[in-house]
């Protein structure tokens, strides 16, 4: 997943812009919708008022007129009207949605109050609600169908040969199943008139035991009877032949319903437990705590039950089993668990320090103080001079230079790399006071290593006459050029060639002359060492006084000569200079590059892949061929 920062920024921008637009559009739409609803007329209010008029006109129009004419009910109606007027105007402090809802509620209340007034003016409330034309169902007293006893819950008998008879599981009630509490035949209990009155608005007839009320619902359209007296008569004559009402059952049902609707917990015992037809067996689920620690061990009871034993309780046992949550069992070593989770060793084995020092003896991070040698030469900012230079400096120091510290650590004179290294070392805090001394010690050590010891130096066996001859020659030489005898050894590596003339004159003992003299003079024991290479070595050439050319002529730096690299397309003056710095001066060099060299030079020129892309090698070959053709 590689996602760039601008992409993320753009994504965030888009998300914000989208959210802003959606919210703004939503707000605008709501605002305009509110405006439309306020300005537009209310069709719902008119419809409600029209329906109210229709209702009041059809059954009780005259009644209302009567009441209006009646002086006693005048104040009540006025109050109701004022109430309705008060309903119309809702509180403007309410929010818009609540205000709208209140308006609707006001409409409904106005119509309801009008209806209530109309019915109140009629004296006693009608036994049936006023029938409107669009009513589809109405309450009517009808004849009771013959009562057939409801059988018990269809529990299968043992000799049942139904399709599920072979399913021996179905013979047992499971959890949550409806189970009959008794197997005796149920008695049909008609709807209680009290419940009917409460629920359906019908009038509850007094229950005197002789004429139980039976109310049934039949589809309307056959008859339309609005007179209450004929209703009562029909009820009387229809319910005379009905069977008596089971009042305790109704009481129980009502009591239960009340207890359920009022949110109270049902008591353990209903008022009468004998009349219930069926009950819902709801047993609390028992999650059994298995006493055995191994939960995966096979339960012998369930094993035998699964084989078909008689004590098999499939639902209870299996569901309880499925509900059992496996207990936490630490697997194996707790310490290992902790280590796996947190990646640390538990501190219970001892103190933290002890565990650290014992468990991680070879941890280079924890044992940094012990493992890493104290000193400077461990970081990347080590400025170690080359061994040859160290040796030369050591030689110069041993030759008697009094200020060896300055020679080794020349802080004042400008060696920029050394200065940089010192700065880096100072920055990382590894530079301390003892640094020059320590570096001097290291230099001495290196000088000892580079310079052969006195006894290791091969001493050639030289004949006596030859020794004399050489000695005489030496004498002659010293006589001849007295002045330049000391400066003969300039070729030996030293800190500087031209500037330190005086120091060399003072006491510099170069290697070559030293060995040469040693080979000439019979110093030390005559060990049989083959010294032919020492003798065959050409004598040093004195080039001190030769005129050194200040600028080498063009083309002399390389055997192929210096070509104009800027003729290669893409090589500008800066690149050419950089190439010259890298030692590339001719086309032949570039033409000899392989892919690795091309890549390396491309990186060195700070344009990786540029050499291959611009095909420098081919161009260099062409230019080289041109040059050879011209030559």
């Amino acid at each position, binding site marked *: 997943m590689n996602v760039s920062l601008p992409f993320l920024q*753009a994504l965030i921008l888009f998300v914000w*812009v*989208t959210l*802003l*637009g*959606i919210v703004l*559009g939503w707000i*605008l*739409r709501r605002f305009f*919708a509110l405006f439309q609803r306020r300005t537009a007329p209310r069709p719902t209010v008119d419809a409600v008022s029209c329906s109210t008029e229709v209702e009041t006109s059809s059954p009780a129009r005259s009644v209302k007129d009567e009441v209006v004419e009646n002086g006693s009910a005048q104040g009540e109606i006025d109050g109701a009207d004022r109430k309705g007027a008060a309903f119309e105007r809702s509180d403007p402090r309410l929010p818009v949605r609540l205000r709208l809802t209140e308006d609707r509620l006001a409409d409904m209340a106005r119509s309801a109050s009008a209806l209530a007034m109309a019915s109140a003016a009629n004296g006693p409330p009608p036994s049936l609600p006023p029938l409107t034309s669009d009513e589809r169902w109405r309450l009517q007293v009808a004849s009771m169908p013959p009562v057939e006893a409801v059988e018990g819950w269809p529990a299968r008998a043992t000799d049942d040969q139904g399709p599920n008879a072979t399913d021996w599981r179905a013979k047992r009630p499971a959890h949550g199943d409806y189970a009959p509490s008794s197997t005796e035949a149920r008695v049909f209990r008609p709807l209680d008139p009290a419940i009917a009155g409460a629920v359906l608005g019908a009038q509850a007839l007094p229950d005197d035991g002789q004429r139980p009320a039976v109310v049934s619902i039949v589809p309307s359209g056959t008859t339309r009877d609005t007179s209450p007296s004929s209703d009562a008569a029909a009820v009387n004559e229809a319910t005379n032949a009905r069977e008596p009402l089971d009042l305790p059952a109704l009481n129980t049902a009502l009591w239960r319903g009340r207890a359920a609707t009022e949110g109270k917990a049902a008591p353990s015992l209903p008022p009468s437990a004998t009349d219930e037809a069926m009950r819902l067996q709801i047993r609390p689920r028992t999650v059994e705590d298995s006493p055995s620690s191994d939960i995966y061990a096979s339960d012998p009871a369930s094993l035998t039950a699964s084989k078909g034993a008689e004590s098999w309780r499939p639902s209870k046992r299996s569901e309880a089993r499925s509900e059992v949550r496996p207990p936490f069992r630490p697997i194996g070593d707790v310490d290992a668990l902790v280590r796996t989770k947190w990646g640390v060793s538990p501190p219970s084995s001892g103190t933290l320090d002890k565990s650290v020092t014992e468990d991680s003896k070879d941890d280079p991070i924890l044992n940094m103080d012990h493992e890493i040698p104290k000193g400077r030469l461990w970081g990347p900012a080590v400025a170690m001079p080359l061994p040859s230079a160290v040796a030369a400096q050591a030689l110069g120091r041993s030759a008697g230079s009094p200020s060896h510290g300055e020679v080794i650590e020349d802080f004042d004179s400008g060696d920029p790399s050394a200065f940089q290294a010192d700065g880096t070392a100072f920055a990382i805090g590894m530079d301390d006071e003892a640094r020059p001394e320590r570096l001097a010690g290291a230099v001495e050590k290196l000088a000892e290593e580079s310079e052969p010891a006195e006894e290791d130096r091969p001493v050639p066996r030289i004949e006596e006459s030859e020794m004399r001859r050489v000695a005489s020659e030496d004498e002659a030489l010293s006589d001849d050029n007295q002045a330049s005898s000391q400066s003969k050894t300039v070729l030996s590596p030293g800190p500087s060639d031209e500037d330190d003339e005086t120091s060399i004159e003072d006491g510099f003992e170069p290697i070559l002359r030293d060995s040469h003299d040693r080979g000439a003079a019979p110093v030390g024991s005559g060990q049989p060492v083959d010294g032919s290479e020492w003798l065959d070595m050409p004598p040093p050439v004195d080039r001190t006084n030769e005129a050194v050319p200040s600028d080498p002529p063009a083309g002399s730096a390389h055997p192929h000569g210096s070509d104009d690299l800027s003729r290669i397309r893409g090589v500008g003056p800066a690149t050419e200079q950089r190439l010259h710095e890298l030692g590339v001066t001719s086309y032949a060099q570039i033409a000899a590059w392989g892919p690795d060299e091309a890549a390396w030079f491309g990186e060195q020129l700070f344009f990786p892949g540029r050499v291959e892309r611009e095909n420098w090698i081919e161009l260099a070959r062409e230019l080289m061929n041109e040059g050879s053709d011209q030559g």
Partner: protein
Amino acid sequence: MERVLGERWSTGLDDIGVMVADRATTILPAPVAGLVGQIWWLLLIVFLFSLAIGWRLGAPGRGR
């Protein structure tokens, strides 16, 4: 091919983009403001579409 040091890179912004980026610099960090100046038209299109979506979502009866 050879890039000269000190070359001024073009911002790639048109007039409106320059103006938008200039305004956006006051409330956004500079790279983001430059991005806004580059994709202002895309942001505008997205904003208009989301306005339409919000308009539809805010229809009465939608939340009930």
